């Protein structure tokens, strides 16, 4: 299967182990050896418990679009950090860094979000690992 060479990068980095404590196991769900970094347009934000989710359309160099889902921290954790539900909106162009789901789906933990103007928002749970 031909690899997508899009704005999608699956790199191999050494794990920097920290102990996650979401309501499900980061280690079982996501692969710390598969960091992802994609850029695309936000299609939907679910600012809900137990984790926020946001979805991003990613276009490859042939013009094909794939929709990726990213899991972030619980809303309360983000609000306590001063990140409100208005921080991320449909239509925003962003770069997201995280770790891909072990099942190979287009799901990943959403570690760090960078906007087109360079502003950066960290959305991972305080317990999840942040991409370096």
């Amino acid at each position: 299967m031909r690899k997508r060479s899009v704005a999608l990068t699956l790199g191999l980095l050494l794990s920097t182990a920290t102990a996650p404590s979401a309501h499900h196991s980061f280690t079982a769900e996501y692969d710390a050896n598969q960091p992802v970094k994609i850029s695309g347009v936000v299609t939907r934000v679910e600012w809900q418990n137990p984790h926020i989710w946001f979805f991003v359309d990613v276009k490859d160099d042939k013009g094909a679009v794939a929709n990726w889902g990213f899991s972030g921290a619980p809303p309360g954790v983000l609000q306590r950090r001063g990140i409100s539900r208005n921080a991320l909106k449909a239509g925003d162009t962003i770069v997201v860094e995280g770790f891909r789901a072990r099942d190979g789906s287009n799901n990943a933990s959403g570690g760090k979000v960078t906007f087109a103007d360079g502003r950066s928002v960290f959305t991972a749970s305080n317990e999840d690992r942040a991409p370096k």
Partner: protein
Amino acid sequence: MPNIRPFTRRLATLIVLGLAATLGAQSKPASDIPRLANGKPDFTGMWDNPKEPGARGAATVFDKAKMAPFVPGGEALFYEPRTGDPRHDEPRAFCMPSGFPSAFLGPYPVQFIQTPQHLVMSTEFMNVTRIIPLDGRAHKTDIEPTFYGEPVGRWEGDTLVIEGRNYKRWSLDDWYYQNPKEYRMHSEAFRSIERLRRVDADTIAYEFTVDDPKIFTRPWSVQWQMKRHPEWDKVGLYEMVCNENNRCEGGKCRQ
């Protein structure tokens, strides 16, 4: 002590001073801590989860080095391997309870509200609340064991001792977040002993003892602390309803 060399004398003096300082710190009346009208230390406030002093971020797990040896068969009871069945392997992914102490070890705020009769401990993680009577009453002997057990508090001077019994066999800590193959369980014989002492306005010395005779040869303890966060007072705890949008039920997150 004319025969003691100056260096030895200085060393002895330092040791004596050190011991005095240590004893002084331990026995110093905690006059600068809030108290209820009945004179008991008041733990009311917003606190970070219990953890090693200086630790940050991740959920607290018990240090293997602090644990007592296993009784025969204890290790097999303690380490529960994953089986591939998500209902067994990831009960929390189905929004099942974390149990105690696990639910209170995640990196989430814990609110304490205290009256002369009760201490209420509420963690933002899944909004779990423990309502702990402080009268030292006897534990029940005729109830089904539960995920959060039956905590009962009593005072030993300024130290609040909370003994929990009647636990259902469930996860002890968040070890399985770090280890994809197994998790740590306590048995139904588990007895938890928390010792809380407010050492200053912003710190609780929090000792946790695990007594589980079906798993360990003797009780063992860890010394953690909780730090106060007055900046969280204004907002309080946020709601965390697990079933609101649980996309990862069954251990596989759906899009």
